[in-house]
């Protein structure tokens, strides 16, 4: 009985395309982060597919999560969200009382959905909280070096710039490292990630210098601190972030400048990479080729164009590749639950999971 139900539920979830929903959410709302989009997509799944038992709900959730993770080239960020949501569901369902396993399932379900939405709203607000915590780090006359297109960093810098509007604002300068890799191959002339933030800061009267990645070491002498964003914060307190962050971290350590990471606490992932090549994603950054290989690849590309895109495994575009910055390079993590040392991240994660 229950198996047939689960089967129909799975079929329902197939008809409801979670991947499309996820991508749509990310596209429609520029402020949303990957874990939150994943949670929102999962809430959508739950609302669209009626389930009547707890195990059915969990099963549906697990299947959609697995499906979503398979179809996205870099599932590190979103897995933080899906894990968190699943954990939250399980703890809610295990709690004794009206909403526990003994209670009325319909009530549980509506409670879950409404709380899921509440969770999403709170997560969106967390960026403001981070900006409030991190504001104190930026002082008059200091120069901040940053990179990538992190919205948390952008909101922090902007908050510091327009503190109570005009005169009381912090007078600081920003060195913005712009990625040389263009966002997509179709439009190579497109502006690099982060230009929007640069414009916004300049509009607020903050002097901004833009430098290429190769000039980081050169520019670090004029820098007082480095603030970067993160895609995921892993269990040992290191971060998974846009390619190039690791080298900035290494340089900062070598030159002795503080290296701060701005990340929402829903980006904490249950993942423990031991090094650069221990991430659970496929990326071909270092790709050895000889002339023969290039010729063969060209031929194959022609063929696939002729045949049309079959079920090729999803591959991470080079511009979206990430690297891992180990915890010993990080001075502090500015999160919505406070300013943490890297070793406190595991404590936070353990608190969530046990």
């Amino acid at each position, binding site marked *: 009985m229950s198996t047939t139900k689960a089967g129909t539920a799975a079929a329902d979830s197939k008809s409801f395309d979670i991947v499309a929903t996820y991508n749509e959410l990310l596209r429609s709302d520029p402020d949303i982060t990957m874990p939150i989009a994943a949670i929102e997509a999962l809430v959508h799944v739950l609302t669209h597919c009626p389930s009547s038992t707890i195990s059915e709900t969990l099963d549906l959730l697990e299947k959609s999560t697995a499906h979503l993770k398979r179809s996205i080239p870099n599932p590190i960020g979103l897995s933080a969200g899906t894990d968190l949501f699943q954990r939250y569901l399980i703890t809610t369902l295990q709690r004794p009382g009206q909403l526990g396993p003994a209670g009325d399932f319909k009530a549980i379900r509506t409670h879950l959905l409404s709380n899921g939405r509440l969770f999403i709203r709170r997560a969106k607000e967390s960026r403001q909280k981070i900006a409030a915590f991190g504001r104190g780090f930026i002082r008059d006359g200091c120069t901040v070096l940053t990179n990538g297109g992190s919205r948390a960093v952008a909101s922090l810098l902007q908050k510091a710039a327009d503190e109570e509007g005009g005169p009381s604002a912090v007078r600081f300068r920003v060195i913005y490292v712009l990625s040389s890799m263009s966002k997509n191959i179709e439009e190579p002339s497109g502006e690099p990630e982060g230009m929007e933030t640069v414009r916004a800061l300049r509009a607020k009267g903050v002097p901004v210098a833009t430098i290429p990645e190769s000039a980081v070491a050169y520019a670090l002498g004029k820098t007082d601190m480095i603030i970067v964003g993160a895609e995921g914060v892993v269990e*040992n307190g290191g971060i998974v972030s846009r390619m190039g962050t690791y080298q900035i971290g290494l340089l900062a350590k070598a030159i002795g400048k503080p290296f701060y990471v701005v990340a929402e606490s829903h980006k904490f992932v249950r993942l423990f990479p*031991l090094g650069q090549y221990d991430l659970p994603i496929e990326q071909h950054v270092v790709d050895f080729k000889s002339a023969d290989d290039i010729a063969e690849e060209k031929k194959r590309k022609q063929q696939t164009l002729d045949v049309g895109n079959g079920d090729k495994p999803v591959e991470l575009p080079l511009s979206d590749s990430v690297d891992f910055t180990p915890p010993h390079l990080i001075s502090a993590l500015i999160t919505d639950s406070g300013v943490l040392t890297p070793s406190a991240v*595991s404590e936070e994660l*353990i608190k969530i999971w*046990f």
Partner: protein
Amino acid sequence: MADSSDMAQTNLPVIASTQAQTTATGDHPTSQVTQSLPIREAKSTKTPTSADNVNAKKNVAPKPSMSTTDGPTVAGGEKPLTPAELKKKAKAEKAARRAKEKLAKEGGAGAAGSPASGAPQGRPPVTPKKDASGASMAQKAQRATHTRRGSAPTGHGGDEPVKKEDKSVAVFGHLYGQPRRTTIAGAGKEVHPAVLALGLQLRDYVVCGSSARCVATLLAFKRVIESYTTPLGTSLSRHLTTHLSHQITYLSTCRPLSITQGNAIRALKLAISSIDPSTPELSAKATLCEFIDNFIREKITVADQVIAASAAQKVQDGDVIVTFAGSSIVKQTLLSAHKQGKRFRVSIIDSRPLFEGKNMARALANAGLDVQYSLVHGISHAIKDATKVFLGAHAMTSNGRLYSRVGTALVAMSAKERAGGVEVPVIVCCETVKFTDRVALDSIVVNEIADADELVSAQSAQQLTGVTDPVAPSKPDNKKGGKGASNAAKPATLASDLETSSSPLSNWKDNSNLQLLNIMYDVTPAEYVDMVVTEMGSLPPSAVPIVHRMTE
């Protein structure tokens, strides 16, 4: 290890793949290495030894006084005792106890190890160690003076003969305590036969390794509980703890208790004290036995499976995994990674005198893994092509440091500070039952000293194969071809000579200038550990106290 010339020079790494294993039973290549060591020592120490004999003669007079303070149980333990001897022994024990109490008082803390202590709820096995940290300052200061006097080069004329007899290494002086029990004679009548047997097994390293010791202790205690009857006029929850503490005291005289044993005993005592006094004895005993079974299953058996599964995920194709000595959980991890079809090599680094890695090498090679076995002095070779280091643990302290078999810190450091700068991750596999709230800053304050005589014998106490002297007969043809045959033959005969007589260190106790240190554990700084795999998940070492707090 392609360059054989390198191997010939250093005599070190021995490849024991499945193929080479048949030869390993015949003539043990590793024992060759170990036995070639005394030869060199013999040569270099020859003159000092003869000189020391003179010294020893000088010291004949004070020698008996030493045996009264220090080694009466060792001396009188082996043969059946006459009543007179028993009396003498009891007297000596009392004297030793008094001396120890005096020492403890001087140290400012009561490290009373006497079995008759009236506090059943305390943890007698743990207290001496624990107090050691508190009392260490005073004791260390006291010992420091010893060192200064002892190490003064001119000071060994005829002054202070009493100090000379002290065969304990000054820095570790606080760790010596009473010598380990060598017999079950003199054990209290309350001690259960299963516990008596276990004590001797622990002492002889038959049961070795902190998880194994914990399990064995719990199983023995289960039998104690099964055969226990509450005396009249008292209740089980009150009396059983005292009864158990007799057993525990006996065990701790055989070998200092491990952290796991301490944690398990604490949990068991808590379970006993939480039993309602009105519970009938039979059901209370059943509850306790069930508690023990659950504890073993949850904290060790299942935990090991979970750890092995999650640590095996970190093994990747093409890895060269270095491990030290013989951790059962690392063995399990590597075997399960092998079962998953991963292709990797294992390099086991082992050390004297326990040779725990031999069992591991045998087991892994039998399972079809490529195994390289070398001793700890070959570490720079073994670490050269390592990609990951897996370590077992005796305990993890609250400051994230790893307390494990001596030599572990060296392996971790070699991996982290390898020339070339390529980082090799160091992964520790450790059940949460091994976590302790103690803090270790160095490996001096808390440690364990084993019998120094273990270092003396050339033949290890726990050899896998009972081969009688593999060196002498097969030596000439087995020696590497590159070296001159005459050169090789000469030490071989010398070795067999030594073998028949004894190790050059055999009468080290008579030599006033010679001290042997057989330390059991060392402390690996948290910076050298990347990851601790526990049954609760993978953690950085800094998260150890948090998890410990949660599992308490």
